[in-house]
């Protein structure tokens, strides 16, 4: 990527065309982009539209325009405003799925390691680590007052005597503190094989190389156990 004297990226039009073509080749594209009346019911019902400069109607219209310049304008922060609630898809009279288009465009941004994607996902690395390395996500020991001061004074409940409080949950699978449930190593190993074959590890390497290395260390440990 080239930059001008103000640090603004100068993106060749060929590259923008390539991005549009990559989206168009996705097998889901034909399902998600159909006719559009421009009725705007999707935007009227869109939750993030109330808080962000984001409109699912614009997403769909830009895709239908087939203009790589217009589509490129959404590839930075714009696509990351979507809540992925799929209100737009449910209420669209033409069965379009702007939320689905967003998923395709985000995947391209991540796969190609766009700086905007790296920036947006940086604070997300703990979840990404747990999910990819352990097949789990929100572990009890992640709920700490330091991370969630805005969740109020009682959030500290999980930070004292956590092990015994988890042991008191009457499901043996849940009696751990570092995972949501005690995932069996054989399940993790199968997950790693899927991630290898489906290219998921490569995607993470593209967007966060240091996190990828940490994940690979864990993967190696589990595989050799």
């Amino acid at each position, binding site marked *: 990527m080239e930059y001008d004297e103000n640090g603004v990226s100068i993106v060749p039009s060929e590259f923008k065309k390539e991005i549009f073509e990559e989206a168009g080749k996705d*097998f889901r594209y034909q399902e998600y982009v159909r006719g559009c009346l421009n009725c705007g019911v999707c935007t009227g019902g869109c*939750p*993030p539209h*109330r*808080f*962000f400069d984001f409109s699912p109607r614009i997403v769909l219209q830009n895709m239908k325009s087939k203009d790589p310049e217009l589509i490129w304008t959404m590839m930075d922060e714009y696509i*990351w405003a979507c*809540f*992925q*609630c*799929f209100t737009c*898809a449910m209420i669209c009279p033409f069965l379009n799925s702007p939320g689905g288009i967003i*998923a395709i465009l985000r*995947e391209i941004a*991540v796969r190609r390691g766009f700086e905007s*994607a790296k920036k947006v*996902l940086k*604070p*997300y690395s703990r*979840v990404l680590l747990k*999910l*990819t390395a352990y097949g789990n*996500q*929100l*572990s*009890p020991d*992640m*709920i700490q007052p330091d991370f*969630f001061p*805005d*969740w*109020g*004074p009682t*959030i500290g409940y999980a930070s004292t005597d956590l092990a*015994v*409080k*988890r*042991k*008191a949950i*009457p*499901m043996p*699978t*849940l009696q751990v503190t570092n*995972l*949501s*449930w*005690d*995932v*069996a190593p*054989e*399940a993790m190993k199968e*997950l790693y*094989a*899927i991630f290898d*074959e*489906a*290219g*998921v590890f490569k*995607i993470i390497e593209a*967007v966060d190389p240091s996190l990828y290395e940490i994940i690979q260390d864990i993967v190696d440990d589990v595989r050799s156990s």
Partner: protein
Amino acid sequence: MAMEISNRLGLANVKSDYIHAAGRKLEDIHEQLLELEAKGEVKVIHIKDENKAIEADTLFGWKKKIPTNRIWHHKSCGQCGNIPGYPVSLLWFMNQLGLEYVDERNQTSCTAWNYHGSATSNPVGLAAVAVRNWHRAYELGLFPLFHCATTFGDYKEMRNMLVEYKELRDEVGRIMHKIGRELVIPEYIVHYSEWVHVMRFEIAKLKKYDLSNIIATVHPACHTYKMIPEDCIYDKDIYAGKRTAVSTGVALALGAQVADYSTWYDCCGFGFRHILTEREASRSFVMDRKIRPMVREAHSDVCITQDTGCTTTLDKNQWIGKAMGYTEQVPVMADVMFAALACGADVFKIVQLQWHTTDWRPLCEKMGIDWKKSEEEYNAYLEELKAGGKTVNLYEYPKS
């Protein structure tokens, strides 16, 4: 009787003689799945007699069979870490009703956080993870029940893609072969709230407390009814079949008043990425679009949810509203937790409300539940465990 409105607070209890099924013409994926099975292209996890299925109507009037017995619990990677009362209440009901199930370690997350949150997956990866977990239920001879709404939405979508795209089937089949598994697809993708819904009258028989003075507001999870909306339960006796019936159904069956509010269709503000990295958006959405309307319009005593993200977002983000001068507060819990409370489950040991942030004690007191006694017993239990005492579990998974 065409329509009968008996709920002074809103539309929840509106009955209709009609199912207004006209609308979008979609292929019934269930029929296509069975055709693929007949051609030998996929194996199907069928509902068997032992699953004691109960039939329900979906959006377009198609029938969906909900298994109630011989269940494989597909846990939620959010609920289990953060809202443990959710799965515990579900298992508690299954024990109360004498139903068989397995809860085990050999399960992974659906990984759909990597779909909606970070976009660090792809359809092959997501579909392969889905089939991997479905196959685990299949090899145990059980029917999978999905606890998380996002898993439910994702798995419905993956099921549809696998049925519609041969290339995806071939690729996932190749990966499954590599890990010693097969391409299997459940006959129905079933969310736990659907189990609660079809079991609501059995659940109501266990009721211990009078809920007639309790006003509930329901927040249905977007991924249950907005993703693959045609595969979600609707009932002509609930919202006159105009909104999904799950969660509202069990609250009504238990005798609570279910009140309407103007932002029912709005999401919770979770946003996957936003709850972690753009929290201001989630916080504002929670207070301005959900909690304040629930309290100001409906005078809600409790907000009933059916998903991990919604429960977390709506519960945790109320306290910070005080910074804006917002005084509205309402306890948040899943339908199954509210039902368990109503049926006498222990507030601390089973419903596990101690992990919740917004004060739930006034609700318990209004229901007539002695939460202080429950807290004392729970604290004594913690001391026992600290001293090396044995855990009292609802279920013991086989040791391998």
